[in-house]
Structure formats: C-alpha cells, structure tokens
C-alpha cells in the first residue's frame, strides 16, 4: 500500500460553467497533519465537499483514492462509513440537547426503538475522555463554550472509527487557549494514528502544526510545502496564496480629490451579549469625502459587525465609542436615524436581509425613500414608476419590466436592485458589504463602474470585501481587520496582497 491514505487526482468541479476546481491534485500521507490553505474562494471548501460526498460522484471529474481504493461517494454517509469525518466551521450541534444526546444523535444505543440512556451516558463519558474534555455529559450544549462544543463534535466523529479527520477552520471562533488545546488534541490523535486535514486562515497555527501544507489558489493546486524540509514558512505560504496579478478588471478613476472627513469612528468597541464575546475592540476609522475605503480581512474578522453597528443596527451588541458624521457627533437608535444622517448600508446577504424577493423591482427600489415620492403619506405611483425606470436604466438592470419580481432575477441584477434602492435614498456615505459576492465578472465590472461614478458625484464609499483583488483594485485606502480589531491601515500605493494577508492572518 502506498504511503498516502488519500489521493485526490485531477479533480475538476464546475458550477454552471464556472470552474471552482481545476485539475486539483491533493495527497495526504497516512498519520500526518496536513493543512489546506488559500484565500476565500480558492476552492478549499469545495474540495472538501467533493471528498465528503456533499457533491456526489459524477458531479465532478477526477478520482478520489482512499486507502488504495477508488471511492465513489454518492452521499455523505458513504464517506462517513469509509472513515472520513468532517467538522464544519458552523457546528452541527443541538444547543438545547444535552452533551450525551448530541454525541449519540442518529446513532442511538437502543433496543427495538427504546433508547438505553444509562448506557448512553456511560459511553459518552468515555468519548469525552478521548478528547480530554472534563465535563458532565448531562450539561446542555448551549451552556458550553465554543471551544468545548468543537471538542464534542470531534468526540462524535471519533466514535465512528474515523481514519481521516477534516477540520474546516476549527479555530476561527476560538480564543487562544481553546485553539492551543485543539492543536494539542490533534497532535495526540496523530500519535494514535489518525490523519487530519485542517483548513485554516491562521498561518501561525499552520506553521505550528502542519507536516505538510497544500496551497490552493483560484481552484488550482499551487504547491505542497513540506515542513520537514523547512518549507512551511509564512512568506512561502502567503506568496503562493496570492501570487496573481491584478488584471485590468478594475476600471480606473482619474480624478482623485478627497475632501474633509465625513465619517469618523473612534474608540469603537462592541460586546455581543448573546454569545458573551467581545466582537469589536477599540476601532478607529475614518472616511473622507470622495474616497473609497476598503475594509479587508477574512471571514469572521468583524467587518460586517463594524458596518452594522455604525449603521444603527447593533442587534445583540453593546456598543461603545464615538461616531462623528459630517462634523456632528451621532448616536443612532435605529437604522432610520443612520439613513437620515446620510448613511446607507448594502448588506452582504442580499437575499437574506437585503431585498424583498416577493415584491417587484419598483417596490424594492422605492422602499427606502417613499417620502420623496409621496405627498402627505400618499404615494404618487407615476412618480414611483418613473424613478424605478430611471434606476433600471442607469444601473442596467436586466429585466423585462420594473414589475418583475426580484426573486426571479439573477444575482448580479439583484445586487443592482439592492444598490438602486440605496442610491434612491441619496446617501453621502455608502457602505457596501461584499458588493460583488456571487456575481459574474461582467456584472462585477458594472458595479465597479457605478462605484466610480458615485465617487465622482462626491459620495464616499466604505467597501467591505473578502476578495483581495477587489480591495486593491478599487480602494484609495485600506483598513485590515482581524479578530475584531483594526490590524493596520494601508494606502493604495503601499498595499499589496502580501502585506494585507500578513495583517489579516495575525
């Protein structure tokens, strides 16, 4: 038998014509800890979904060879039965059930449908020992910290005779102690002969734990770095992660004249009372008139939380700090206050909390500023149709008419409707959260062009983006966030993918 427990050979996976994975080769040795790194969207999660059978055999090209045999997983249970277990970033636990119920859900110790609870509790105690978790199995999962919850997931995976354990960003939500614990556990499991694959954005951890590290970029395997040869270094990883040129997909803006600071956030902190965690720490940012400020960082860095807390939507956060808009200190109690002060926020999740999918384009565009087209509370429908048609034309929204339901539009056109809705509010400061997520290159270019023309009209834009290329291509100034903090501020001229990545993975 070969030294590899897993060989993924020439894997190609397409989503409606777009190649998410392109002839990817990925080999994992038996008994090693192998890290998989790459930017957001590089294809790491897709590759793991191919491996675990989320994308069944036949929907991808290439071969998966596990323990010397070609595997054809048609469902997730097939890979589980073979000994592959994945632990996702979003934990799949039931918070209102106890630890032992969670450990055995779907795998109950039973006879004729009746569960033997005392046996279950006994067995779960042994499972918890295996992951060095010293808690009462009768505790509710919701009463545990995220780190302990993660260990329960691992314990659950180990109970199924696992040979290959895959962890998707396991430490993203953990504090340092918990992360340290987790890495320790992985090393112990390695001694017991269990192979692990860990996806991680935190390069320090990768360097600390990896035997080998494979770098993916844009759906291609770039290289596999070997720690025993001293190849796993921060520089080597970052260089391979980002090493692409920014092509001319970002329209240029000639005139740049920045005015006064229009938005200034200082000593801004937020504490999430629901999960009991500090999510924003002492943030100081500002935006000038006519400027595009990029906020870079990896998922979970706190960028959306920052934007939403500025926009007067603190959810369950307790927010402290000062916010100065156009020279006046403000405290927003409601999103409507922020809108009145000239701020608009285009959400990252346009289907979830951005658009009204069951309403038509017209209703979606006018909803934020009905006052403008209403006389004493009565809407002038003709004026509304006119406005909606103007935005449809200006933003080149492709639809037969403004009476088309927004739910039936493509992602790019939905994003334009979302943008149109906020432009009609006529803000001075536009916060764009992942403005081009999930839309095609052509529509992206159109959105960038719109952004540039808005800037020329004197608007200011804050752009949150996980795409480094976009941040570099569009911003005048860039803040890099990680773990709820601003880790650095870079001018467009001095920023490059390497130094952003370095700050974001601190």
């Amino acid at each position, binding site marked *: 038998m070969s030294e590899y427990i897993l060989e993924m050979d020439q894997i190609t996976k397409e989503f409606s014509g777009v190649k998410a994975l392109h002839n990817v080769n990925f080999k994992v040795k038996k008994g090693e800890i192998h890290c998989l790194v790459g930017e957001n969207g590089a294809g790491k999660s897709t590759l793991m979904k191919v491996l675990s059978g989320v994308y069944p055999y036949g929907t991808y090209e290439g071969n998966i060879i596990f323990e010397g045999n070609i595997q054809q997983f048609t469902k997730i249970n097939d890979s589980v039965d073979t000994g592959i277990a994945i632990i996702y970033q979003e934990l799949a636990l039931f918070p209102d059930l106890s630890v032992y119920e969670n450990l055995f859900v779907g795998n109950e110790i039973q006879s004729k449908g009746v569960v033997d609870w005392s046996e279950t509790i006994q067995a779960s105690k042994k499972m918890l020992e295996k992951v060095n978790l010293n808690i009462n199995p009768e505790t509710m999962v919701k009463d545990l910290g995220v780190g302990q919850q993660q260990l329960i997931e691992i314990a659950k995976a180990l109970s199924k005779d696992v040979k290959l354990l895959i962890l998707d960003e396991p430490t993203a939500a953990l504090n340092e102690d918990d992360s340290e614990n987790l890495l320790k556990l992985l090393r112990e499991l390695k001694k017991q002969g269990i192979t692990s694959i860990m996806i991680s954005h935190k390069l320090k951890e990768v360097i600390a734990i990896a035997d080998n590290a494979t770098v993916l970029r844009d759906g291609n395997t770039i290289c596999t770095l070997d720690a025993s040869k001293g190849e796993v270094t921060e520089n080597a990883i970052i260089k391979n992660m980002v090493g692409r040129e920014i092509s001319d997909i970002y329209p240029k803006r000639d005139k740049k004249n920045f005015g006064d600071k229009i938005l200034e956030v200082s000593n801004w902190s937020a504490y999430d009372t629901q999960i009991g965690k500090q999510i924003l720490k002492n943030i100081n940012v500002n935006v000038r008139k006519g400027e595009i400020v990029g906020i870079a960082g990896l998922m979970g860095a706190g960028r959306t939380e920052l934007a939403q807390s500025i926009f007067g939507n603190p959810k369950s956060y307790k927010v402290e700090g000062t916010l100065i808009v156009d020279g006046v200190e403000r405290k927003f109690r409601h999103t409507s206050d922020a*809108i009145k002060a000239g701020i608009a926020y285009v*959400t990252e999740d346009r289907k979830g909390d951005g*658009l009204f999918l069951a309403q038509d384009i017209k209703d979606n565009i006018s909803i934020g500023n*009905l006052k403008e087209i209403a006389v004493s509370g009565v*809407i002038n429908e003709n004026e509304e149709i006119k406005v909606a048609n103007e935005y449809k034309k200006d933003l080149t929204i492709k639809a037969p008419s403004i009476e088309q339901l927004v739910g039936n539009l493509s992602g790019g056109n939905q994003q334009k409707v979302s943008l149109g809705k906020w432009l009609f509010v006529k803000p001075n400061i536009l916060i764009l959260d992942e403005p081009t997520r999930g839309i095609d290159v052509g529509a992206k270019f159109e959105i960038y062009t719109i952004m540039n023309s808005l800037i020329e009209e004197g608007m200011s834009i804050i752009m949150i983006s996980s795409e480094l290329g976009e941040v570099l291509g569009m911003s005048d100034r860039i803040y890099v966030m990680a773990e709820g903090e601003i880790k650095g501020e870079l001018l467009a001229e001095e920023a490059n993918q390497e130094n952003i990545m370095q700050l974001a993975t601190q």
Partner: protein
Amino acid sequence: MSFFTELKSLLKNNIRDYGMYIALFVIMLIFTILTDGLFLSSRNISNLLDSAGYIAVLAVGVMIVIVIRHIDLSIGFLAGFLGAIAAILLMETGLPVYLVIPIILIIGMIIGLSTGFLVANLGIPSFVATLAGWLIFRGALLLVTGDSGTLIIQDEAFNAIGNGYIPSIAQIGGLHLLSLLVGLFGILFFIYSSISKRKKMKSYNFEVVSKPIFILQLVFVSAIMGYITWILAGYNGLSWTLVIILLVVIVYHFITTKTVIGRHVYAVGSNPEAAHLSGINVKKITLLVFGSMGFLAALSGILFTSRLQAATPTAGTLFELDAIAAAYVGGVSSAGGVGKVTGAIIGAIVMATLTNGMNLLGVGISYQYMIRGGVLVLAVIFDVMTRKRAA
C-alpha cells in the same frame, strides 16, 4: 397586438387576481341555476351581503395581520365581548348611540394595541398571545352577559346598523331612488378616475392597455356595478351594513395600496430583516396592524350585535376562523408580504355565498362544513400553483 391576444395575455398574467372573481362568478352561476333564479333575487343578494358583513370586516383586518406574518385568534370573542359592552352601555348605562359607537371602536383599538405590544415589544409569538386573548375575551363575554344571559337591545338607531337601509328619497317604478343614485355616482366616479389615471400614465409615457381593452374593462366593471345596484334597489336598497363594508374596503384598499404606511406593512411582511435595515420601524408597524385589527374587531362586534339586536354569551364564536378562512380564500399568503383587501372581501363573499346558496338548496349543515373546507383547500392549492408558475 390584436385585441384577443392582448386580452388573453392580460388574463394569463393576472390569473391570480382574476381567479377569485371568476370563482365567485362560477359559484353564483351554479347556485342561480340550481335554485331556478331564487339565489339571484333582490332579497337574497341583499341578505347575503348583509350576513357577510361582520366576517368581511374581520377578514380585512386579519388579512393584514397575516401579511406581516402574524395571526390573531382573539378577534372572534373580542368582537363578541365588545358587542356585549355596546349593549350594556346602551341599555344599562343609557349612553346615546353616537357616543357608544366611538367608545367601542376606541376600546377595540386600545385592546388591539395591547396585543400588538405583547407581540412587537415583548416578542411573544402572536399565536400564543392571541390564544390567551381568545380565552380572556371569551371569559369576559360570559362575565358581562352572565346575569341576564341575553341582553335585548331596544335602540332603533343602533339596530338599524345591522338591519336598516339608507333612506329612499322616492320610489321609481318600485326601485329605491337613493340607492340608484349612489350606484350611478359610483359608476361615474369609477369611469372618471380610470380615464384620468390612463391620461396621467400616458403623460409619463408609460405603457397602457390598448383602447378597446380599456373600454371593455370600463364597460364590464360598470355593468357589474350597475347590475348589483339594480338588484339591491329592487329590494330595500343599500343597507347600512353594506355602506360600512364599502367604506372599510375603500379606506383600507387606499391605505394598503397607495400610502407609505401600506408599503411599509408589505415590506415588513415580505422580509422583516430587510425592512429593518431599510429604516422601517418594524415594531411600530406591528403595533399599528394589531391596533387596526382591534378597531375592526370592534366594528365587527357592533355589526353583529346590531344585526341580532341582542348581546348573547356565544356571540363571536368561531368568527376568527371564518375570517382567517376568508382571508386565505382571498389569496393572502402565510409566507408574508402578499395579500389584498379586495381579495379578503371577495373571500368573505365567497364563503357567505356558499353558506347562503347551500341553505337555499337545503344542504345539511354537516355537508356545508365539508364543502366549505374543500373550497378553502382548493383556493389555497390554486394560489400555490399559480405562485409556483410565476416563480
């Protein structure tokens, strides 16, 4: 585009809106044939519309509650309770009608706002909050009617609301003149507003339907309005109940379709998170909708009590479910954001038509319930199917 292809595409694109009208028409046609025309007699139609009144008013209110993804189960007994309070104020306290009615409406609104407070501010699921209301108002109704059981109302003005008709200035060939005039005025107003709307749209260079289709629409709607007026004028004319329903429809239709508040209501129903991020005060809208529900429940209570000319301990029983059924037959969606005032009214009329027609035919009460249940399911299936096709 030729006349017929345009007509066809218009029907096809608006099948969900027209479906209900077509269904109502078919049901009425069937009953007319089966009863040898008795169903369509002046007296029967007049009765039918009057008996639909108190449910129709509730259906409008609860339709809007469902649009914002909530429910109100308390409205039946709330109507019954407030009706009883009205009777007590009239007969035992001796307050005049013109004071009793606004007092009851205001109490209804305040109770609705309190329910809204529970739902919007305290985050209690509306099903539970209004189920509690259902119990409380049922108990309250029993309490206030407890001593006498049934409280007879001897106030002509109050009883006229549910049983009276607008005065006739003169009879022309046995027809009720004022009703004819009201109908005529309605038709003229409809034609005038349609033409002016079309003109305005043209001035904005918007697409309008072709002239023949436009004229067809005018003639068709005017003919229906004219026919209904003619039928009603042949009996006692317009009833006060019908006048009240028409007012409720006009006001609520206007608010839901033409005003900023109405648009905000649909936005909250369609996507509460997006509505909040669009600067809409979701709590305020929720309060408002429950407030309006309480107001309409009070109105329904007044209509029903006046129609019976008495307050009874069982008044309001199952009204809420009849109203909810009417709203669903009228095309409201429990997924939120979709529903029309006209739909709720037509839904209420469809349900009342079924009851009335089956009574005329002597269909047993057990079958009546089953048939109405079947119609409810069919209406919702139709709605789901057309929605799928549109998506």
